[in-house]
């Protein structure tokens, strides 16, 4: 029998019961008595001067309660960028204000410049259309292409800026001359120009928000689709509306996926709060999918030139990267850190390369804001590295497996500081590579290739070896780098009088399974049944100030905070036990839910100690407070560094260019694994998002800034029949050395490691078939592959 509880067991998820019976509680499921409905009036043009807003048109229309325009929010604060990045010349990034509703100009299709509140959704929708029809917006030429945006300073997304550049960042600037020199004198240099395609995150639950205001107390409540309710509270209260934090509760109930897009504070959240206050009734807004396409922060969108310098045996000498990263029309909260510190610092990969330099220019365009999307910067880094390594192998006729092996850091080299400033703590990249080779049956590839060829299909095999930095992040370090918040997390462990436990955590679960997995950890630490432990998350009035879930940080940061709080509870329990058992504290042992005196049979159960803490009749009241509840804030000493090796096999149809994924194999090192079932599920999902990026997905704006891929008719989401089963393994574990759980994080891995494996496999198939093709930009649709083959 496999273990059914405790650390390392594939415990079935308790959250499934409500989701499988239709009794989940997502934001749009909530109805507040008397609620009104908000609908936004959004720009149809990518760039335009607002001449007049036809708010009058809605006056007197059935059910209309209020209309808001950009003028109403002109004097409130703006939604800030979370990181201040400096340019190579030392100047601070340009940081135009991001208003609740646009005024003066609209800057992307979907930019909201008015909102109407009505008794019913249909009435609000009808009135919004009337306002849209009555508004006058003078269309300006759209700024879409990044190169053009940088070249033409006369047409600007933000008139108050001198041009369309946000910053020009170098990492590490001191490496620059050395890297240039190394590349100049290297025996071989491989150069690759590539695009990391724009993606639309598409969590299946569209964003939604409900604002409430309680006039009797002056309290506000925001129920919203957020990955991090405290961050949203901080932003909307302190930065945007000027509400005291203590007067605003933010609740993120069940949230239907995030993938980054729900980290950020969006203007709709501020609007429903302001409207609720004005109307003294709840105001609800739910995005239609087309609004999600237009206004959720998009992902990726990098244009990159990468150079790899090496000797003729394939030993790496230097990597140099030049990237243009699109930030869209406004700076979303993590837009400036994603293409910089989450990308540039990963450009050494798992390799012992002595020289690395990265230059990133970020560019404003008349498109939706671009921000972190599953992997956030690290998929972009991995894709550039693994594609250029693959190209180099082909140029020099080297074996991609051997080239990885000879350049990998070896286990004896840890801790290892890379030339781009990260200190990797542990890893064994050879082990994960060997595991992937074995599980992917690389030895049998030739036979499978022959079988494919017999069917008229071209088979190829692609490899990608990846590393990421997650468990974000040591606050003092990120503070130096420009973060405007701390990145610790927090948990409160409350042992109730009857011995069951409520655990309030700063992390938020929107698919990650915290309610089950966190209970496994607490249950194991306390030696009590998991069923007696409740994990509470998502409500700022219940949980301690935490930073939420993104960047594969929940377990490595919040989980460790929770474990530390459990340790504090146990320490206090020992004091209580010492008193009750008339022993010295140092003699008290705790294991399997029992406090005992060392070397004796005297003991008290966890429940007895809890009861005594709340009914302190026989209790050391002079020296110890009653109650059994502890809070811990945990600020990690370092990032964590999961890594792995992915192997993809594809079959390409030479007549149509269609790519089928024949198999996909992952060997990952996530450190210690708490629940293998959950970890495997995270990898499956991440890999399929990466396959989506590699083969299907592309956010396309035309030259007028119209989003051509604004629905599921034009934006190809991976569906069940587009993808294979995914073989996953996490047995090559090197536990993290700086958190006691030894965990590294697994949420983003699949999306980071998979795109280059797919693209490398397709190029392998084509080159084996005699087509000399260096590169095809993602997504590798049939038309792109066919065109490359027939160029």
């Amino acid at each position: 029998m496999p273990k059914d509880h405790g650390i390392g067991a594939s415990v079935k998820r308790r959250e499934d019961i409500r989701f499988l019976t239709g009794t989940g509680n997502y934001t749009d499921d909530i109805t507040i008595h008397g609620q009104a409905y908000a609908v936004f009036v959004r720009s149809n043009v990518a760039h335009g001067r607002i001449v007049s807003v036809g708010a009058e048109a809605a006056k007197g229309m059935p059910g209309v309660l209020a209309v808001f325009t950009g003028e109403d929010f002109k004097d409130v604060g703006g939604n800030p960028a979370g990181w201040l990045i400096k340019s190579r010349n030392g100047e601070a990034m340009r940081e135009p204000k991001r208003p609740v509703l646009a005024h003066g100009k609209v800057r992307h299709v979907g930019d909201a410049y008015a909102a109407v509140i009505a008794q019913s959704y249909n009435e609000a929708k009808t009135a919004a259309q009337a306002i849209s029809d009555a508004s006058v917006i003078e269309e300006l030429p759209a700024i879409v292409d990044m190169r053009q945006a940088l070249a033409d300073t006369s047409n600007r997304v933000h008139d108050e800026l001198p041009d369309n550049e946000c910053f020009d960042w170098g990492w590490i600037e001191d490496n620059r001359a050395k890297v240039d020199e190394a590349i100049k004198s290297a025996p071989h240099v491989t150069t690759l120009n590539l695009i990391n395609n724009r993606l639309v995150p598409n969590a299946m639950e569209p964003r939604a928000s409900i604002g409430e205001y309680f006039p009797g107390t002056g309290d506000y409540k925001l129920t919203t689709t957020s990955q991090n309710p405290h961050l949203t509270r901080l932003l909307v209260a302190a930065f945007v509306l000027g509400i005291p934090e203590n007067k605003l509760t933010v609740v993120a109930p069940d949230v239907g996926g995030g993938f980054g897009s729900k980290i950020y504070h969006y203007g709709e959240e501020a609007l429903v709060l302001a409207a609720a206050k004005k109307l003294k009734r709840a105001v609800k807004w739910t995005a239609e999918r087309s609004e999600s396409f237009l206004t959720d922060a998009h992902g990726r969108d990098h244009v990159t030139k990468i150079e790899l310098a090496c000797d003729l045996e394939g030993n790496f000498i230097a990597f140099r990267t030049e990237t243009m990263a699109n930030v869209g029309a406004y700076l979303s909260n993590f837009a400036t850190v994603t293409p910089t510190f989450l990308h540039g610092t990963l450009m050494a990969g798992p390799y012992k390369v002595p020289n690395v330099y990265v230059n990133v220019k970020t560019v404003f365009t008349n498109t939706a804001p671009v921000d972190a999307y599953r992997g956030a910067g690290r998929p972009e880094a991995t894709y550039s590295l693994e594609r250029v390594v693959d190209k180099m192998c082909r140029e020099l006729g080297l074996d991609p497996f051997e080239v990885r092996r000879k350049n990998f850091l070896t286990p004896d080299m840890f801790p290892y500081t890379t030339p781009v400033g990260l200190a990797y703590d542990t890893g064994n990249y050879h082990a994960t590579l060997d595991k992937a080779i074995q599980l992917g049956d690389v030895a049998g590839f030739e036979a499978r290739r022959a079988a494919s060829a017999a069917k008229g299909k071209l088979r190829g095999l692609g490899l990608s070896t990846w590393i990421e930095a997650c468990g974000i992040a040591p606050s003092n370090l990120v503070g130096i780098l420009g973060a405007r918040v701390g990145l610790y997390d927090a948990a409160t462990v409350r042992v109730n009088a009857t011995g069951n436990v409520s655990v309030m955590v700063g992390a938020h679960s929107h698919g990650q399974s915290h309610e089950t997995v966190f209970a496994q950890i607490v249950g194991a630490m306390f030696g009590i049944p998991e069923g007696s432990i409740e994990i509470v998350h998502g409500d700022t009035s219940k949980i301690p100030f935490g930073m939420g879930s993104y960047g594969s940080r929940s377990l490595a940061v919040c989980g460790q905070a929770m474990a530390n709080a459990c340790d504090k509870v146990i320490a206090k329990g020992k004091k209580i036990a010492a008193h009750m058992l008339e022993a010295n504290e140092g003699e008290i042992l705790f294991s399997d839910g029992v406090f005992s005196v060392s070397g004796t049979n005297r003991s008290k159960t966890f429940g007895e100690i809890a009861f005594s803490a709340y009914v302190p009749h026989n209790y050391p009241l002079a020296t110890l407070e009653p109650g059994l509840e502890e809070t811990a804030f945990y600020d990690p000493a370092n990032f964590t560094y999961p890594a792995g090796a992915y192997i993809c096999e594809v079959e390409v149809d030479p007549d149509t260019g269609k790519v089928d994924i024949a198999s996909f194999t992952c060997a990952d090192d996530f450190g210690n694994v708490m629940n293998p079932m959950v970890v495997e599920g995270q990898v499956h999902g991440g890999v399929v998002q990466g396959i989506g990026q590699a083969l299907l997905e592309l956010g396309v704006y035309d030259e007028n800034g119209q989003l051509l891929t604004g629905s599921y008719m034009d934006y190809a989401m991976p569906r069940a029949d587009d993808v294979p089963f995914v073989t996953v393994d996490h047995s090559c574990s090197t536990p993290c050395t700086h958190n006691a759980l030894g965990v590294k994080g697994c949420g983003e891995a699949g999306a980071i490691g998979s795109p280059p494996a797919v693209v490398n496999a397709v190029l392998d198939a084509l080159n084996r078939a005699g087509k000399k093709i260096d590169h095809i930009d993602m997504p590798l649709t049939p038309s792109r592959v066919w065109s490359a083959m027939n160029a």
Partner: protein
Amino acid sequence: MTKVTMTVNGMSVSAQTEGRTLLSAFLREGLALTGTHIGCDTSQCGACVVHVDGQAVKSCAVFAQDVAGATVTTIEGMANADGSLGVIQAAFQEHHGLQCGFCTPGMVMSTAALLAINPKPTVEEIRHGLDGNICRCTGYHNIVKAVLAASGQDATAMAAE
């Protein structure tokens, strides 16, 4: 406004509707059956799938008035009489066929309809049969396993691990 009556999860229910009221809105707003989800506005995600007279239907693409008198089953009607999970629901839990849970009601309803016409589908038939339902979380791996298991097939043997 027109009064519409239908049988939902075994109960006869009535509500006032406009001509434009969708079945999904009738269920979610009129009856507070919020297990049926809305994931798109172009009838392409499948989060809203319910059964109308035994057929899987995207409830966002049907007017409530057009199905007056019909028998409708939603996710809320899929558990066993004693409240325990039905076979398909239990298989989804057992095989971790859901993460955020948002696509799940539609997946379960589509699976039930698939198995009703094809009680032992192959992996390919399952993938094809569910291609009207988008899941962003699971990569479908465990959903396919859950459907295999729900149809009494050996999921672990058929799915690569």
